[in-house]
């Protein structure tokens, strides 16, 4: 009776075990069918908003519908690992970033390497930045560095281990021979809560974290010490660059399209051209402003080189932290 009950129950499950199959497609003039963009983050996040901003503009220029598929998990690694397994037909691409394409593959169990993908085109970037609470004794980046050099024990946080903000600060600390204790958070906002509660002394995060924290009259609970860009950032013109603050350092979090390795060159070229035109359009700049993104076009080859360069600077940091071999 027990067994029979179990079998009947199990039979009910069979109704669930239906997995959708993706139809294979014939190749002629690109694009001849809809383009899928895999967003390896959930709806509503920065990566999703970026993709949804690009989709209509690219639809116009490529002349084909674009479908956005959100496949979140493990800070972008799940969606990209699944993307790497797909047919490189040129009709499925995904959104990668500095941390997911350069850092994650160096770490334990990512399910892909940068070579699993063809780089297509880089889209935008956001400079890294460092902030403290408004009542913090550290008025400038120099104050903070001096305190760390004199052996003061400080905690800091960023949006998760192996994320862009975490790596950006870890690289900066390592380059200047500084040590501070990293306290983990699951998102930039959680790290901001830790900064305000006093649990951590400084915060590392992309520039877009800061403008919403500053009231119209310029008052804020936080003080942004510096941004790691070549010139002052248009959205926070009063904040010095790291170089101006005396510490030459450049680091941005960037986003770009990748596809499964072996994509037709024709597809890469067509998407690259459409992105270039989109980023050059003045009305598109207004849309980027809403989310504090900078246009940061790079071709497939430049983006590949960028990944290699960042891997070189991330590797010692990750080894130091015991995250890579």
């Amino acid at each position, binding site marked *: 009776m027990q067994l029979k*009950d*179990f079998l*009947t*129950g*199990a*039979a*009910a*499950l069979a*109704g*669930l*075990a*239906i*997995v*959708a199959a993706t139809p294979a497609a014939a190749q002629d003039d690109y694009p001849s069918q809809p383009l899928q963009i895999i967003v390896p983050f*959930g*709806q*509503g*996040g920065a990566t999703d*908003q970026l993709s949804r901003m690009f989709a209509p503009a690219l639809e116009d220029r490529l002349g084909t519908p674009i479908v956005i*598929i*959100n*496949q*979140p*998990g*493990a800070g972008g*690694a*799940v969606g990209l*690992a*699944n993307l790497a397994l797909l047919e490189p037909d040129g009709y499925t691409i995904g959104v990668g970033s500095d941390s997911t394409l350069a850092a994650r593959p160096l*770490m*334990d*169990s*990512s*399910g*892909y390497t940068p070579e699993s993908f063809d780089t297509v085109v880089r889209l935008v970037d956001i400079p890294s930045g460092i902030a403290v609470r408004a009542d913090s004794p550290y008025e400038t980046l120099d104050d903070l560095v001096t305190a760390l050099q004199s052996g003061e*024990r400080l*905690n800091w946080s960023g949006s*998760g*281990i*192996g994320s862009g903000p975490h790596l950006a600060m870890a690289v900066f600390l390592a380059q200047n021979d500084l040590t501070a*204790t*990293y*306290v*983990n958070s*699951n*998102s930039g*906002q*959680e790290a*901001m*809560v*830790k900064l*305000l*509660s*006093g*649990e*951590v002394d400084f915060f590392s995060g992309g520039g877009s974290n800061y403008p*919403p924290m500053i009231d119209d009259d310029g008052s804020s609970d936080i003080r942004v010490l510096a941004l790691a860009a070549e010139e002052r950032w248009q959205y926070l013109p009063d904040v010095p660059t790291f170089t101006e603050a005396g510490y030459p350092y450049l680091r941005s979090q960037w986003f770009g399209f990748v596809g499964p390795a072996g994509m037709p060159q024709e597809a890469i070229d067509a998407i690259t051209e459409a992105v270039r035109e989109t980023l050059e359009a003045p009305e598109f700049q207004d849309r980027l402003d809403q989310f504090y993104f900078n246009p940061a076009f790079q071709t497939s080859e430049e983006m590949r080189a960028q990944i290699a360069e960042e891997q070189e600077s991330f590797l010692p940091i990750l080894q130091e*932290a*015991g*995250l890579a071999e």
Partner: protein
Amino acid sequence: MIADLAAGAAAIADPWVILFVFLGAVIGMVFGAAPGLTATSAIVLFLPVTYAMGPTTSMALLLGIYCSGYFAGSIPAILLNTPGAPGSAATALDGYAMAQQGYGDRAILTAVMSSFVGGLFSLLLLALIAPSLARVALSFTSVEYFTFALVGIVCVAGISRGSMIKGLAAAFIGVLASTVGLDPVSGVGRFLFGQPNLMGGIPTTAALIGLFAVAQMMLLTAKGRQEAEVLPVQQTTSVAEVLKDFTRNKFLMLKSAVVGALIGILPGTGPSIASWVSYSDALRTAKPGDRYGKGEPKGLIACEVSNNAVTGGALVPLLTLGIPGDPVTAVLIGALMIQGFETGPFFIPHNTPLFYSILILLLISNFLMLGIGIAGRRLAAKVLEIPHGIMVPTILCVAGAGAFSLASNPFYLKLVIIFGAMGYLMVRFKIPTAPAVLGIVLGPILEQNLRNALTANDMDATVFVTRPISAVTLAFMCLLLWVWLKPAKKSDDSGDGGGSGTPSDAELKG
């Protein structure tokens, strides 16, 4: 504040929002009334539908389901002695006894009106304390979050006194499942079995669909159709008569509402725990002549006020700390995230109009629950007659679609099947499934905050007792353990609780 309130109200003054809160109330009523389906499973199943909606519309649908779903479980509890949702298990004791004596209509009216009172009370509490608590919450660190989550796990253990070991076992099955994926602190993969899809861990919603919806459908299939007992012809009752009961029991109602709302605030608890605590408290203070367990309306009032007072209470930690107060609010975190809102101390200050919209929607949902409950109480009973041959495959298809759409990932279907089979076995072996889900939710909160708290304080474990809020929380936890463990010895003397009066595993499923 007035401007925010106006903005919140304006967001609701949209026919679609009103339509969806109404739809939500109807769906909640149907799911709550159908045995095996709960408000939680309704919210899980309808979550994917909200992806394309705006935040207000999405909240309208889900909060509508939430309020009436928590009430509607009492309809089959009263008419069939089969609680539609675990939170209504205590309701069945007096409710079914009343129906057997021909007072079923009065029992349902009492239940819906009590639920309304409980819901309104908790809404008031939410409106009053949430904004100020959000400001206080900004001073909480990993130390405090860890102790809050610990209280959650203790609550699960403390309340399942009928089978405390099994309750704890279930909670730890959940905690174990939550360790799958990338280690949140060091980024190293754990229990991946070479499957990149597991890097993100086991999504709570997939586990929830498996453990609740799929497991229940398997049970229904295995059980076949149960014949309902024939009840005597039911007398109809007027609203005024029930109101008279209420005025006689003002104190009991207030007490039950406070208990329900406070239990809602505690992370990891839910309506089932609230209703049992209120019911056992009502028993303890019973007067001679009260017929608890044999059809005493006071028993119904205590349970129903309390289990709906959970709704507003459970939203307090969700909206201020980002920690869910009960299983439904655990799903609401996902719903808000899909809309681009992160729950936590910034939620109310940054999204004040949405917060007011949520308050107003809760108010509307409570009124709709009252209206639909009174008007449709006889119709709702018809849901019980849907043949299993139609219900089971329909629910399974919807559940599968829901699991897939979480992340457009077919892998999650496999997870749902695994958790469905696991949930079925757990129920068969009388291990409650709700603590397992809470374990999955609370596990990462416990782990990360413990590790962060120690890292940030040089591995000094005394911070948990030297920080005042954390120390008070730990003291409160000890008090809870004492209160819950003490009556366990006494419960043999108060034998008027009715046949199935001891909280066993069934009521923990809410």
